[in-house]
């Protein structure tokens, strides 16, 4: 053959496929599951790995067995497999025939061990959880500035509350440095920032991607944070140790935003409702006393001592005039015998009557003054400044805020100037 034969990619792939698929008979392999995906078709794709290598795996129609075996990411399994070659993607893969757990994978084991240790220390105690502020003035977020998590988080917050204040503490969220880096950012935020709630967040990823949030330093920093902390790591199904240590766990970054901030219009509606209830209950509170006041006024008028006194005064008048007459008669009849000293009796009686009448007048005036509401109803107003009732203009200065009580309702007014008179 003078020239080397030229073959197509497909032909080359077919040769490789043949070699690879016949490279070894079906064999048992053990490793840890990572990046697993179960498709509706029933096929399961995952990566099987150990500390030195990783191999793509496909388990055709393995979904049921996968679920029945309780398989999940981070788990170590023993699988029966044969080598395969996926020509379209040029990818070597293991074709799984069956798989079973063989104890837990190292990451999972580390997770469980640390979780148990920290739980025993009380780091996850419900009693340690701090309540979140109802309406945080400032929200701090520890995350990657480039991540989708931050974008989602900010978007939801801004939609719910136009006046929101957010502070971002940039941090690595993946890789070897991430846990220490995020712990440092969290401590810095807690010490130097003035946020009322801190959110530690990161979007979804593989169990390895999210691993920083299971590392002891970061978990302890979350537990020790004096400011209420929310943890929103990965997706709904991902649980990190930070989730257990935080005061609140949110399933996703958007959910975290929803959990820490109630929409502004809901707050406004709630406060408006309180206002309506206040108004209604004041009306209720006034109804009974006003009715009683009305009744009392009527009874006062009817049973007024003024009236009784007037009757008595009339009686006295009558009696005194009869007395006067009788006395006059008597005096006339006995004037000569008893002498003129008796005539002094009439003026003394007159004085007694006068005293009675003036006392009566006083009582009437005091009764009238007892009803300030009636004063207000005549168009007078009661002015108060800092709780003091005003009687002199000199008690206030221009600019003072006065409360004016009217017969119905009141006003808050500001003094423009002080009139001389």
């Amino acid at each position, binding site marked *: 053959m003078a020239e080397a034969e030229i073959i197509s990619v497909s032909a080359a792939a077919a040769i490789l496929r043949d070699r690879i698929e016949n490279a070894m008979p079906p064999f048992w392999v053990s490793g840890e599951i990572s990046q697993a995906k179960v498709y509706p078709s029933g096929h399961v794709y995952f990566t099987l790995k150990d500390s030195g290598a990783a191999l793509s795996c496909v388990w055709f129609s393995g979904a049921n067995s996968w679920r029945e075996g309780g398989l999940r990411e981070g788990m170590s399994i023993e699988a029966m497999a044969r080598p395969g070659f996926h020509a379209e993607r040029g990818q070597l893969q293991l074709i799984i025939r069956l798989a079973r757990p063989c104890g837990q994978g190292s990451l999972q084991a580390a997770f469980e061990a640390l979780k148990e240790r920290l739980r025993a220390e009380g780091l996850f105690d419900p009693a340690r959880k701090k309540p979140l502020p109802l309406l945080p003035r400032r929200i701090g977020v520890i995350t990657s*500035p480039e991540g989708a998590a931050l974008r989602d988080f900010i*978007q939801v917050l801004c939609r719910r509350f136009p006046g929101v204040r957010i502070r971002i503490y940039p941090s690595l969220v993946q890789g070897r440095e991430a846990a220490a880096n995020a712990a440092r950012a969290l401590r810095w935020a807690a010490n130097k920032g003035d946020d009322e709630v801190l959110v530690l967040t990161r979007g979804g990823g593989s169990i390895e991607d999210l691993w920083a949030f299971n590392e002891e330093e970061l978990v302890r920093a979350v537990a020790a944070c004096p400011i209420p902390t929310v943890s929103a790591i990965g997706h709904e199904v991902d649980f990190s140790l930070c989730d257990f240590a935080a005061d609140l766990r949110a399933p996703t970054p958007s959910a975290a935003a929803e959990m820490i901030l109630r929409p502004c219009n809901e707050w406004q509606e709630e406060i408006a409702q309180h206002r309506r209830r206040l108004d209604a209950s004041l009306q209720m509170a006034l109804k009974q006393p006003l009715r009683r006041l009305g009744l009392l006024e009527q009874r006062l008028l009817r049973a007024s001592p003024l009236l009784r006194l007037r009757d008595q005064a009339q009686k006295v008048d009558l009696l005194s005039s009869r007395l006067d007459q009788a006395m006059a008669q008597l005096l006339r009849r006995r004037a000569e015998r008893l002498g003129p000293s008796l005539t002094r009796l009439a003026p003394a009686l007159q004085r007694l009557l006068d005293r009675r009448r003036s006392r009566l007048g006083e009582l009437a005036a005091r009764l009238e003054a007892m009803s300030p509401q009636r004063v207000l109803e005549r168009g007078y107003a009661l002015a108060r400044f800092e709780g003091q009732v005003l009687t002199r203009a000199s008690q206030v200065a221009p600019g003072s805020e006065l409360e004016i009580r009217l017969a119905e309702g009141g006003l808050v007014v500001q003094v423009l100037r002080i009139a001389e008179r």
Partner: protein
Amino acid sequence: MSQEPAAVPSFEDSLSRLESIVARLERGDLPLEQAIAAYEEGRRLAETCSRRLVEVEQRIEILAKGADGKPEWREFKP
């Protein structure tokens, strides 16, 4: 870094005080003078709470290293 004056009651405090005043008034057993005083305080608290909902201007900032190496806040555009 702005610090709120300590005397300003928190939104929580204002709201829970408002709630308890509404509940107390609704029981309807307060003497009139106290009812009016409670009402006036309730209206003030409701005012404080609503102001708190509109007063803050949106601000998104990110912590960055300044020219002098010290941390500083910069505006963040998502």
